[in-house]
């Protein structure tokens, strides 16, 4: 199996441990990755609020790069995945828009998006293409006894028409992976809520309260750690956890791992290899 790895911005910046976790997991699974070093930011739903045409042109360019490579795209961020799927579906459903985007693309870059590329997040690759039974066969360190709370991130689920989840109102894809790794999934009400990251710069108080609700929900449900497929959710809940705790009467101390990191741990990666030491809230040593 071979994928064009779309890193997005965070895995190259404030979430480099996500990239480390992805390589650690994929190398052990036998999934070949070719990093798309010339792909641009997906726009994160922000560029489109300045000019949706620019965002679509940027993303169509990225898809054309993957088509040129002859590979499907693997995302490691659900915000990138959600933005990509929305753009891809809108282009496919609107031939006039697609033609206009391609006209700009051709004139400015000489490229063309043909509409053929397949785009999947890491966890979807595991579930749909790699297969949980094969994943289980590669596990060398089952995460037995570890209680893990999945936090999906909005872009994986909503709006429904852009979601690849089987039941975006009550998904269980991450819980299936957690179970396959030998850990115990913990369900809690806030697992499908927003982490607040998109309004961090506009209304920090609201933003951190949303993360506080998720972290508290997971803790009350008995989770040892949380896992997310979205590095932006990770940033709000990990990097800002001291501020969040400052708003509360209790210490949360809730590690928030990226899903590839959790998979890599079960496949035998060391905490150092997946840069767990860079997390603001680190998992307890006996856990990992």
């Amino acid at each position, binding site marked *: 199996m071979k994928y064009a790895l779309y890193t997005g911005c965070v895995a190259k910046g404030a979430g480099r441990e996500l990239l480390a976790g992805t390589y650690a997991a994929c190398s052990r699974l036998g999934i070949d990755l070719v990093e798309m070093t010339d792909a641009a930011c997906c726009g994160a739903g922000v560029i489109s609020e300045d000019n949706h045409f620019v965002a679509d042109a940027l993303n169509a360019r990225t898809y054309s790069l993957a088509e040129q490579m002859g590979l499907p795209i693997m995302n490691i961020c659900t915000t990138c995945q959600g933005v990509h799927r929305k753009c891809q579906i809108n282009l496919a459903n609107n031939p006039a828009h697609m033609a206009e985007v391609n006209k700009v693309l051709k004139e400015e870059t000489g490229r063309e998006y043909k509409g053929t590329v397949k785009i999947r997040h890491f966890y979807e690759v595991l579930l749909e293409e790699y297969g949980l039974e094969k994943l289980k066969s590669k596990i060398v360190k089952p995460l037995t006894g570890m209680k893990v709370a999945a936090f999906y991130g909005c872009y994986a689920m909503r*709006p429904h028409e852009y979601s690849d989840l089987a039941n975006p109102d009550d998904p269980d894809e991450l819980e299936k992976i957690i179970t396959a790794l030998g850990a115990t999934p913990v369900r809690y009400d806030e697992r499908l809520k927003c982490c607040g990251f998109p309004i961090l710069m506009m209304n920090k108080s609201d933003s951190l309260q949303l993360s506080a609700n998720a972290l508290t929900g997971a803790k009350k449900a008995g989770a040892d750690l949380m896992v997310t497929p979205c590095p932006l959710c990770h940033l709000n809940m990990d990097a800002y956890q001291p501020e969040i705790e400052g708003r509360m009467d209790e210490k949360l101390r809730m590690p928030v791992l990226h899903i590839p990191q959790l998979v890599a741990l079960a496949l035998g990666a060391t905490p150092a290899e997946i840069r767990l030491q860079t997390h603001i809230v680190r998992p307890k040593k006996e856990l990992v």
Partner: protein
Amino acid sequence: MSTVTFRIFRFDPERDATGRYQDYQLALEPGITLLNCLNKIKWEQDATLTFRMSCGSAICGSCAMRVNGHSLLACKTQASPLVKDGVIQIDPLGNANIIRDLAVDLEPFWASIRKVKPWLMPDSADNPEKERLQTPEQYLKIDNSTTCIMCAACWSDCNALEVNKKFVGPAALAKAQRFIHDTRDAKRVERLEEISEANGVWNCTHCGECSTRCPTEAKPLGRIEEIREAAMAAGVHDNNGARHVLGFRETVGKRGLLDENYVPVRSVGFFNIPALLDLLPVGIRMFIRRKNPPVIPHSIEKVEEVRKIFSRFEELRKE
């Protein structure tokens, strides 16, 4: 016909200190709507059960309620697909105070709608002799938002409202879009400035719940994106949300990647000392853990292609 348990939230302020659930058993007729199930329960089993309904045909919006944790219109939804382990759980709308059972106080919702001045404000000076007309193309821009039936399903499930009752909310923003993009309205920029203030359009978390729950084509998240795009185009930039977008435009347009060090500073304002000091603790914390973004930002390969795409639209913007 299979018999299903309807687990319905009950609350009578004269009798109950807090809410409780009451179970009712009902055999589901093929194709029966949730609203018809509730009516059967009320008519045949318990006349005290309180819920709102009127038209029964997805026009009035009064029968919105939460089912299995998500809001929907009872009259528009068949009951059978809602059954989970033999149960359909029904709650009142969220983000609202409960009056009785499934009926909630919608006054804060209506107050938010009034806040965006939901009426046309044309240029009084043009004094037309005939009605003001729109072309079909002009109307298309507000076609979706005019389908809103004010059911408050979006309000109920809005994640931002859960933590901030002052947020204007998705329905009001969809309503605002309807007038901002109406070519007959003369207060476009004033509307954009007002909606860009605190607790306005930039307070939306972009979680998508509103569009997912919306039973019509109003789909508030799409309308919110259109308002933001209009505000950016109109130069309404004096707020953190717009500066955040500008930071994205500047760094992605220059390097192809987001500069995570620059954008937060750009968002709060270069000379906003208290806000900059507020960013410091997380910056130091991340630096110590080597979790900080690279001090010298990266560019993608072939970045000139991205710059050309941005330049093309910058030229169009100036025209």
